[in-house]
Structures are given as C-alpha cells and as structure tokens.
C-alpha cells in the first residue's frame, strides 16, 4: 500500500512539475536548442528574436513568457527537465537564485573584453558576492518627469527646496504641483540615498546609517503633506496622465502613456537635496540574461555563442530604438538615433547617480519593513524615532529568521 502511495505521489509531483514548465530547456532538448524564460513586453522580445536570427542563426532559441517567473523558477530551477536554460529578468533576485544554487556564474561563459564597455553601474548590479551572474542588457531608473504646459522652463526645480516652493504655489483646486508614490520603499529610496543613507548595505545590515534615514523621513514629510494621501501607483499615474499633477517621479514605462494622453512631457535631472548637495538617487533595475547551471554545464558552446551575441552593442541599439530601453553597453549611446532619444539619454545620465537595487536575499524583507515604516510616518503621523526603532527591530528579527 505504501509503495502504491509513493508511486502515486511521485507521479503527481512529476505532473505538477510538467505543468509548471511548459516547454523546458533541460536534457531533453538538443545542445543547440535554448529555452529562455522572460516576463518582458512583446517589443523587447521581438527585437531580441530579430537580432538573434541574424547574429546566431544556428541556435534554436525559444522565448517563453512567464507571468510569475521567479515563483516558477523557485519551484523548478533545479529540475533540468522543467527549467529553462536561461532567463531574462531584473538583477535584484540574483542573490536568491545564487543561494539556491541554480545560477551559473557567467565569468567563464563570456569574453572579459566584451564586458569592458558595460556601464559600471550595470556590472555592479549583476555581481553578487564578487561573482558576475548576469549579462546586463538594459536598465531602468526612475526619472523626474513634468508636464511642460504647467511647469514652465524657469520653474523646473534644480533643488528639492525649489521643488517644495513649486508645490506650495501649485497645489490646490484638485491639482498637485508634484506627486509620487511617497510611501512605497522603491520610490522613497531616492530620498534616503539623497541624504547619504540606504535601506540595506551589501552585508545585509538594515538601515546602516540611522541618522540619514531619519533625516530623509523628516524632510520628505514636508513634501508628502502636499501630495494625495493615496499613494498607489494607479492614483499617481492617473493624476499625472490626466494633467492633474504637474510633475512626478516615475519609470520610463509611463512615457508612452503620457505621450498618448497628449502630455507635453519634459524630463529633467533629479533635484539636489539642499541640505546635503546630493541628488535624489533612485534605484535602478538592470535587466539581463541569467544562465542556469545545467545549461552552462551541458550546452556550454550554445550558451557562449548566445552571450557573445548579446554582449554586442548592436542589440542594445535595437532595444533602445524598439522599446526605449537604456542599453547597458556604453557604446550604444554613440549611435546617432540613440543619441537623439531624450528618454534614453536621460536614463543614461541618471545611471551616474542611480543605486542598483540590492540583490542580496535579505532585501526581500526590507521592502515590507520599509513600506511599513513609511506608512507609519507618512500616513499614520507616528513619531519618526519610535517608528524607525520599531522598523529596525523588525528588520533584524526577520533577517535573523532567514538565517
């Protein structure tokens, strides 16, 4: 009876894994057949397919879109029969997958010379514990965007003090001088970095500079009071797209919608914090290709050929032109068409100050901890010191529990 039960359970597990995988890379496929999971928009994948058809014609590459890519990888990443060979995703999960043991370092798979032209910020992002785990393709950062019909050229703020003055003069009658997702960790991080602080350091220490974080929270509160209490992405996005907010800090993904909505869009450098002389420094997300261990060991030549093709500046140019992506390869910005793209160039400029999202596993808990801290301070009006102490204690508890 027990044996029957075991067989039944094993069968059930196999069926579940098969369902997760769809088409997989793994041992069943040929050595020149590569399956790549992704969660990207069609324009990005089309550009990659068109480019690879020319650059690596002998490879049989299948792109497979996964809505919950990271969850699926956690389930089947160690199973060559269900896992892909490679996947395209942001760099911030590298630590999780490296610790799971499913990622292959790419140092031995790509020529070191091919990495020389990558923007340093993108290589920093792709490195975990001194090992490179991702070939960066392009990156995203938040940008300071404004409606040129409301925020006139002489009003675009160079400093946060000027931004505050603008907000005070231009908020009322159902409209806002500036809006952002003020109580979301991803957006608030720019303000914390502008005060020299950080949410977590590379060793996994939460809020390593407590004073900087508390100063940022106290200063940011003046701006929060001039913004809607509702901090959801949909609210902020809608206010800006409907012309009810003059300026915002948002991602490049907002740009096509803003242009479609008839917004005369301007993009400006991030304002500098008067007190520190440092700019608001948003997180950056570096999108790149990751190699799973099985593929690195069993399809080595195919993987090397693919990575060599993707390290070429030509694909970065294609992605920039097709989808407004900011290429990781610095040489792409010399292309005349890319040089004319205001949005791409703005992200290139922001790359100088942007902070790569931490890619260590401990960051997973900090999103929630920081979100709660922001809610307490910005939305519930709680004392900054007490809220910070509670958040720090919670972070330490959760990180200890992870170990």
């Amino acid at each position, binding site marked *: 009876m027990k044996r029957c039960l075991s067989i039944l359970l094993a069968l059930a597990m196999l069926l579940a894994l098969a*369902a*997760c995988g769809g088409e997989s890379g793994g041992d069943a496929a040929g050595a020149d057949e590569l399956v790549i999971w992704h969660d990207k*928009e*069609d324009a990005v994948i089309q550009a990659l397919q068109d480019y690879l058809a020319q650059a690596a014609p002998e490879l049989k590459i299948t792109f497979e*879109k996964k*809505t*919950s890519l990271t969850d699926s990888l956690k389930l089947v990443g160690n199973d060559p029969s269900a896992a892909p060979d490679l996947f395209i995703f942001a760099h911030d999960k590298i630590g999780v997958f490296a610790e799971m043991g499913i990622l292959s370092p790419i140092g031995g798979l790509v020529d070191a010379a091919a990495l020389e032209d990558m923007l340093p910020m993108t290589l920093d992002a792709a490195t975990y514990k001194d090992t490179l785990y991702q070939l960066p393709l392009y990156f995203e950062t938040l940008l300071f965007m404004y409606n*040129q*019909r*409301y*925020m*006139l050229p002489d009003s675009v703020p160079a400093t946060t003090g000027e931004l505050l003055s603008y907000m005070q*003069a*231009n*908020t*009322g*009658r*159902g*409209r806002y001088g500036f809006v952002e997702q003020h109580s979301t960790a991803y957006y608030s991080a720019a303000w914390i970095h502008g005060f020299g602080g950080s949410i977590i350091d590379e060793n996994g220490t939460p809020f390593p500079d407590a004073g900087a974080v508390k100063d940022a929270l106290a200063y940011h509160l003046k701006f929060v009071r001039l913004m809607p209490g509702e901090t959801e*992405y*949909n609210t902020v*996005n*809608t206010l800006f*797209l*409907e*012309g009810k907010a003059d300026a915002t800090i948002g991602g490049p*993904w*907002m740009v*096509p*919608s803003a242009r479609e909505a*008839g917004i005369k869009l301007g993009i400006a450098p991030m304002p500098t914090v008067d007190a520190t002389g440092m700019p608001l420094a948003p997180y950056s997300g570096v999108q790149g290709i990751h190699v799973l261990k099985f593929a690195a060991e069993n399809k080595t030549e195919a993987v090397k050929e693919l990575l060599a093709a993707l390290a070429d500046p030509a694909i970065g140019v294609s992605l920039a032109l097709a989808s407004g992506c900011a290429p990781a390869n610095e040489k792409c910005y010399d292309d005349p068409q890319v040089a004319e793209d205001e949005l791409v160039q703005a992200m290139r400029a922001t790359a100088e100050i942007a902070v790569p999202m931490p890619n260590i596993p401990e960051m997973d808990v900090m999103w929630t901890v920081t979100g709660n801290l922001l809610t307490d301070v910005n939305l519930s009006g709680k004392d900054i010191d007490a809220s910070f102490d509670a958040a720090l204690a919670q972070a330490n508890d959760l990180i200890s529990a992870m170990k």
Partner: protein
Amino acid sequence: MKKTVAVFLALVMCLTLLPLTALAAEAPAEEAEEAEQVEMVAIVAKVPAGWEDPCLWAWADDGTNAFEAWPGEEMDPMEGEEGLYYCYVPAFVQNVIVNANKGTMQTDAIAVEAGETAWITVEQTITAETSAEALTETEIPEYVKKIKVHAYVPLAWESVNLWAWADPDGTNAFDTWPGLALKEEDRGWFTGKIPAWANRIIVSGNEGEDDEKTEDVTIEPEELWITVYNDLTYDVAYEDPDKAVEDVTVHAQVPEDWADPCCWAWSAPDGTNAFDAWPGEALTAEDGGWYTIQVPGWINSVIINANEGSVQTSDLAVEPGSELWITVTDAENAQVAYEAP
C-alpha cells in the same frame, strides 16, 4: 399612342417626385432647426435673502423634464431688481421648483400655466405663490439661447473672466472687458454662460492683469470645457474631460478543467492594474457556460487564469471601453470578440 401617353405620364410623375425627394433630404435639418426653436417662456422668481444662486427645475405633467439634471437651470438676476431672477423654460412646462444654494434649499412643486410667463414669490419657508401679475415693471430680457463654458485655469488665477463675441460682425456678449466673472464650481472648474451665437472667447485671469489671458479661441455653439495651462495654451473639449470612464463587462468561456477562473486586467504600456494582486478578481458563473466580470473601461489588456493562477492565457490586447467575449480553448489559444458569439 397609349405607349406615348404612358411614357409622358411616367416622366411627369418623376418630375413631380424630384422636389419631394429634395424636400425629404432636407427634412432632418428642418426638424433639427425646429427643435432648436422650441417656444420658450419666462419664469420669474423673487427669492428671499440667503437664497444664493437660485436655479429652476421644471417639468410637464407627463414627467418630461425641461433640464438634464437637478438642480436645473441657473436663473439670471434681473438687472436693478434685488432678489428677482428669471429663467426661460420650454412652453410645455407645467410645474417648477425654485431652489438655491446648490439645491440644498427649495420650494415645493409649483404649478404654472403651460406657455405663459409665471411670476413666483418664494417665502422664507418652502411655500411659494404664483401669479400672472408682474412683480416688477422692469422688462424681462428677451430669450437668448445660452451655452455653458467651464474653464480650468492656472492656480495663480484667483479670479476668472470670460469675454465672448461673434466673429466677424464683432457683436460682444458683455458690455466691458474682461467680461463675465466665472463662478468656481466643483473639481476646480469655473463656470458661466454665454449666448450661443458667440463663436469666439477669451478666458482671462486676475481681471486680465499682466496679459494673463488666452488668445482668441474659436468655439462651437455647445457646452464646452476649456483647460488653460500655465503657458496660456489651451485645450477645448465638448465632453466633460473629468467624466469617469464607465466599467465594461468581460465574458469568458474556459476549458472544463479551469476551476474558479479569474480575470487580471491592466492598461499597457504604463502597467496600471485594475486589481490589487494576481490572479485578479474571480469571475461569476452565468448561464450557458459563460463567466462574467466588470472591469474598468480604461483597461486594454486581459489575462484569464484559473486554478489559483497556475494556468493562464497569454496577454490579450483588447479595445478599451468595449464589452468583450473571450473564448479560451487552452492556455495558448483564446479568441476575443466584441459581439456575443
């Protein structure tokens, strides 16, 4: 001979029909013109102190309303007559309610004679008296069809005025620049009425100081919403730009082994989601194997999923604002239709 007569008669008939055909083609335009020229009669009301911005709600005994929505048409003050306001209503009106202070104060229903000017005196209570006798010797201004103009203006403008005229003859709607002072309404819009014959306007701020004004704006004779930006450029719309987009219904048919189907919907490429978290909202089972759900009208992308989000369609691009029917054959195959299959 018979044949010749027949041909002759046919020709005469055709010639007779030609003007009728031409008339038939003109008929809708005439009807529209007639509709424009509905007989209007004046209702004059004397309201007590404290009744600000009086409006008139009016209807016929058969329930036909004269105006679209409560509190009805804003009444105009009669020049030089304190507390006296007038408003024109279609001649079919047999009942009115005078109200004020954004509809928070009102009379009971007041019966009036259809097609006749009515004079109403509103007491401090909700009662009112109506009479055929004039309350003043001042002449009621002639009926002029008016349109509403709504203006959304820079925050630095503390007051907003509207200048209107007919081009090219140069007839002005108001006596002196900067014209009608607009009143602040909900959601930051300023509103006022101008004669429908005006085809040019200028919106100005702070009494027109420092050249705070738009250029000459050409308009159609319809209610309009003008947004004036800080750079003094403008957009004119003939539908309320703030009007919420209505929800639409998504119908879906899914394979038998797709349990508890859900809908995930968003606006691409900005990524605004209709629901808080994956897998979205559960669909409701209807007759005939269909499931339905209401989604915001602005979404343009949909995923139908089931089994707690473990099985799903690919991203389905859909037309915003349209009711749609999705037939899911399997995870890779789904058909979208805009009419019930």
